[in-house]
């Protein structure tokens, strides 16, 4: 993945090897009994230990427990004493993937909605991001102000930004209907934006508004890393602006894009905050994104076994997509 630093001939290797360097006086006093070599060997592990313990407690152990929970019939009666919950085998999974059952059908529907939502959001966020980043190249008056302004939606706490959107999208008192109906007369009747079919459009627009600045930020930084002599050389070769964009800018952004698109995809797919703040606890069917769906079906029915099974399926899907994505994009990268 993105961490490919092992092959770098940094000074780290030397330092690790230079285990016999004279230790500081303070060090000798504290750890006088341990041989220097052993201490140097153990030091990196000591340094990562706090991070490791915290990751274990909050991410890895819960994940293992979550996988275990998905095999239990973990209903509300067993929440405080969950070791007593009966083993359920694969039945939680069977219910979740059975499209003939109500649970399975609604999960599948939510899954499809989430895929559509994610693809559209990532595409639009990336497009706006690259447009903004390319148009911001060069220097012009107000560039710094504009750049800061564009980043505000990303810097804003989710709930503050999204709650503002839910006010904008109110049927009777919101700005969106004021503009579309009262000022532009596009609709005869005031449409609802937070319930019904339109809720899908709403959640996409709000997500794009929140995520495009991140794409913009990363792509702008990526553009800055492209050496300017490449542009000069291609200009000498007669390449115009459009040709440079296609032959210099976009190919050189590929490593940045590889990471950016993946991160955007995962964040958007797993996004809970936007739909939850926008719609509240009950998401409309047409914007029933998977995180909120699992949350609802877990905490409304208090059936954590079934909720965990759905989460595990979600994880498996994301692992699969990530693996396929990395294989495809890495291969293309080495071909180029």
């Amino acid at each position, binding site marked *: *993945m993105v961490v490919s630093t092992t092959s770098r001939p940094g000074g780290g290797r030397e330092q690790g090897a230079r285990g016999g360097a004279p230790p500081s006086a303070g060090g000798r006093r504290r750890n006088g009994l341990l041989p220097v070599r052993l201490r140097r060997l153990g030091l990196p592990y000591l340094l990562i230990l706090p991070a490791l313990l915290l990751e274990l407690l909050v991410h890895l152990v*819960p994940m293992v427990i979550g996988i275990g929970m998905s095999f239990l019939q973990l209903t509300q009666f067993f929440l405080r004493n969950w070791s007593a919950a009966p083993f359920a085998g694969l039945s939680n999974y069977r219910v979740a993937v059975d499209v003939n059952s109500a649970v399975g059908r609604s999960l599948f529907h939510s899954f499809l909605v989430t895929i559509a939502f994610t693809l559209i959001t990532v595409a639009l966020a990336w497009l706006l991001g690259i447009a903004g980043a390319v148009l911001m190249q060069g220097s012009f008056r107000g560039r710094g102000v504009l750049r800061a302004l564009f980043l505000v939606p990303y810097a804003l706490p989710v709930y503050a930004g999204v709650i503002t959107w839910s006010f904008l999208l109110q049927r009777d008192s919101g700005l969106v209907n004021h503009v579309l109906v009262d000022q532009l007369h596009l609709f005869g009747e005031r449409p609802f934006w937070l319930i019904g079919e339109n809720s899908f459009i709403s959640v996409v627009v709000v997500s794009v508004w929140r995520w495009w600045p991140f794409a913009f930020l990363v792509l702008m930084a990526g553009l800055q890393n492209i050496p300017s002599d490449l542009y000069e050389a291609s200009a000498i070769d007669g390449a115009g602006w459009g040709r440079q964009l296609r032959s210099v800018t976009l190919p050189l952004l590929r490593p940045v894009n590889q990471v950016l698109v993946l991160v955007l995809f995962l964040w958007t797919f797993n996004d809970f905050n936007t739909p939850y703040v926008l719609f509240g606890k009950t998401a409309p069917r047409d914007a029933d994104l998977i995180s909120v769906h699992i949350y609802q079906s877990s905490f409304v029915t208090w059936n954590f076994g079934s909720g965990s099974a759905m989460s595990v399926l979600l994880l498996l899907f994301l692992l699969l997509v990530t693996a396929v994505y990395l294989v495809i994009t890495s291969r293309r990268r080495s071909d180029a």
Partner: protein
Amino acid sequence: MREPRWLPWARWVGLGLLTLFTVTPLYVMATTAIKPLQDVQGDFNWIPTRISLAPFADMWSTVPLAKYFGNSLVVSSVAALISVTVAVFAAYAISRFRFPGRRVFSITVLSTQMFPGILFLLPLFMIYVNLGTAIGVELYASRLGLIITYLTFSLPFSIWMLVGYFDSIPTALDEAAQVDGSGPIGALLRVVIPAAIPGIVAVAIYAFMTAWGEVLFASVMTDENSRTLAVGLQGYATENDVYWNQIMAASLVVSVPVVAGFLLLQRYLVQGLTAGAVK
């Protein structure tokens, strides 16, 4: 770069549209916050007809905003502080030492970023509830539980960005410090950390923002006493009235600190992001 003649036009149109899209909600937030309640319940008005600062005064009593604010402040600051400290040590180990398990550790930590939060939520909820009854340390519905949870959320990215930062500091500098008689920890404290201060501050801001904005765990892991702004702000919608003007006023007030911090430090955040991403 040679620019075609239409580019300046395209630039103003494109950037203009992006500005409109970005700013409209911000404008509505700011103007709604200074409207009286009557004016936000009827038709929308672009320009406030009457200006009232009452929402900024009333928002503190409609919901216990000060308490939520305090909770968010404590939880986010402590989480950011611990997260940065832990990340500095881990990033130093990854950047300066080659040890077995280094790559596995980096990849495991980073890949937790891609896991859906909902996957941890249910087990973590169970762990916190059961740990509370087992050892008497109340993690569920306490600020401590939230702090522990949030600091791990920002940890992967913090470590990743700091590794990029530390890698950009020449190892000759730490070696010089070691020749002067400091151990590796001395080199970290005396050379690497001072040289990486902008990156460390940026990472701290990032960790603070992550905790300040988190909704999912806050909505499950808090009660009336430990509630943070993320959940507390939803309290302005009562059954009879939705106090949109107060919601916007409160949103404005809770956003200003993080947005200001982010904008001040975005340059360093970008450096860290690309240092990690491009390599």
